[in-house]
């Protein structure tokens, strides 16, 4: 896809996110919308995968460590045909395929997530297994900024560099908010880039809504050898929905019917 098509696709994914969370009546729109551009670019232009064969052993792996933002993952998987789109309508409901947090029963999802801080390790296991088997797949892992307050993340950061996992690329959705407020107020994260550099990572800092920068970052990461790469993407929580942008309340609250109507209008292609 070209950049224009990707931008258009991202809007469509955002509409799916709003729609499914509004129907569900609960969920996490803020972080889903902040990571939409990053993941739309990844799934359409970077990731080697085959929706007809989700278990394809040569597939690139994607693991969403910040599992609460699964609505955007579900929207992408549905768009690729991993499961019927109508499943999006039953997100979080009893008996539904699409659980409140990522579940390995869902085609395209390998390992559960939701309890924060564990996903980078999971991704590292996939990366080490690939290297052992001399497979050339890459592993991508989406982290939340609030999430990196978890100690397990830094254990993994240390180990990924120790094991020189250059087939692993982490993506940090740096939207600056967590449930209780601004990350800088709740538990300061800065200097984030220096921290990852000090742990031995290649750090690429980008605007997480600039399609061109996103694509270039993924491309650059592929060329980094002997160390893991993290793309630190500055993003806007609730991106592209005016009343959600940088509003902490929408970290974990569903839009009302009326709010969803406004959001859909703002996200329309016209």
């Amino acid at each position, binding site marked *: 896809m070209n950049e224009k098509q990707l931008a258009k696709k991202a809007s469509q994914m955002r509409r799916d996110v709003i729609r499914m969370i509004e129907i569900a009546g609960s969920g996490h729109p803020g972080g889903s919308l902040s990571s939409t551009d990053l993941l739309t670019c990844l799934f359409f232009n970077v990731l080697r995968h085959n929706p007809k064969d989700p278990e394809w*052993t040569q597939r690139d*792996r994607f*693991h969403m460590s910040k599992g609460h933002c699964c609505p955007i993952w579900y929207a992408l998987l549905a768009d690729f045909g991993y499961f019927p789109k109508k499943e999006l309508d039953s997100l979080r409901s009893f008996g539904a395929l699409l659980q409140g947090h990522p*579940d*390995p029963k869902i085609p395209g999802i*390998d*390992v*559960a*997530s*939701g*309890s924060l*801080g*564990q*996903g980078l*390790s*999971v*991704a*590292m*296991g*996939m*990366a*080490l*297994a*690939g290297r*052992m*088997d001399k497979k050339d797949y890459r592993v991508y892992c989406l982290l939340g900024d609030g999430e990196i307050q978890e*100690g*397990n993340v830094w*254990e*993994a950061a*240390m*180990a990924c560099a*120790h*094991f020189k996992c250059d087939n692993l690329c982490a993506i940090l959705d740096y939207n600056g908010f967590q449930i209780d407020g601004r990350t800088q107020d709740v538990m300061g994260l800065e200097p984030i880039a220096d921290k990852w550099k000090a742990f031995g990572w290649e750090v690429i800092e980008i605007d997480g809504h600039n399609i061109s920068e996103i694509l270039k970052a993924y491309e650059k990461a592929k060329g980094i050898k002997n160390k893991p790469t993290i793309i630190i993407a500055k993003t806007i929580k609730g991106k592209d929905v005016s009343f959600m942008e940088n509003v902490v309340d929408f970290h974990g609250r569903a839009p009302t019917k009326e709010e969803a109507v406004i959001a859909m209008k703002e996200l329309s292609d016209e």
Partner: protein
Amino acid sequence: MSKEMMYQRDVYGKTLVELGKEDENIVVLDADLSGSTRTSFFKREFPERFFNFGVAEQNMISTSSGFASCGKTVFASTFAMFATGRAWDQLRNSVCYSNLNVKLVATHAGITVGPDGATHQALEDIALMRVIPNMTVIVPCDGPQTRDAIIAAAKIKGPVYVRLGRAKVASIEGLGKFEVGRANVLRKGNDIAIFSCGIMTEQALIASEELAKSQIECSVVNIHTIKPIDEDRINEIAGKVKSIVICEEHSVIGGLGGAIEEVLARKGLGIRVARIGVNNRFGQSGSSKDLLKEYKLLAVDIVEAAKKIYSKS
């Protein structure tokens, strides 16, 4: 009755090497204790399939699920305290919820850790592991049974917890064929039934000999698989007596005793139960001999408990 003394962890290390030769899909992880857990044996043979995560158990366990999701059979080891305590959330959410092929083989369980003291003596690990869905829990009673358990664990598709000790243990005769979920009946008697696991099986057998001298005939049943527990065998053996004694080197809360009492209560047998185990206390430093005495985990304690409960019938 008992013969050779062995370290269960030596057996574990050797069995891992055996398995590693047969199956190149096996990977082994450790968290800076490979010398103590004996995963170092595997490291020596297959360095490319061994990963040391340093002092970072949470990372080791969540990484194990990534390996397993790519088709690897993962053996992850450290001390029982850190394996089951420090990384419990990682085990529950990343490993067991995804039903991944991870074998957590923990050593240094129980009070017999000795001089390291309370912080290192896991007395809650069976409870912590058996409560998680999809998890199989195995507590081998000696060296040879450890080998059987490790081989069986490798064949199970899904998470398994295997609990091993630090100290040498006597090999038990007549254990018979090992089958996950099927208890070993080591002795039959109609007065009292003694159920045990791990190192307490040897003590149970010694106690049964002693009790026989007082004309109290005991059944002795080694419950190596705590989950899934052998309900049929427990109901059958317990159904023949009025009193049972349950012995474990673990807290009396939530372990083997908890599991057996759940079975018996469901069946409504209404029999009396005496418990040999650590009674809602932390451990402490000392030789394992001193500690087994202090915490009343010896054959003499089983005999006393059995006589007390039997005399009431």
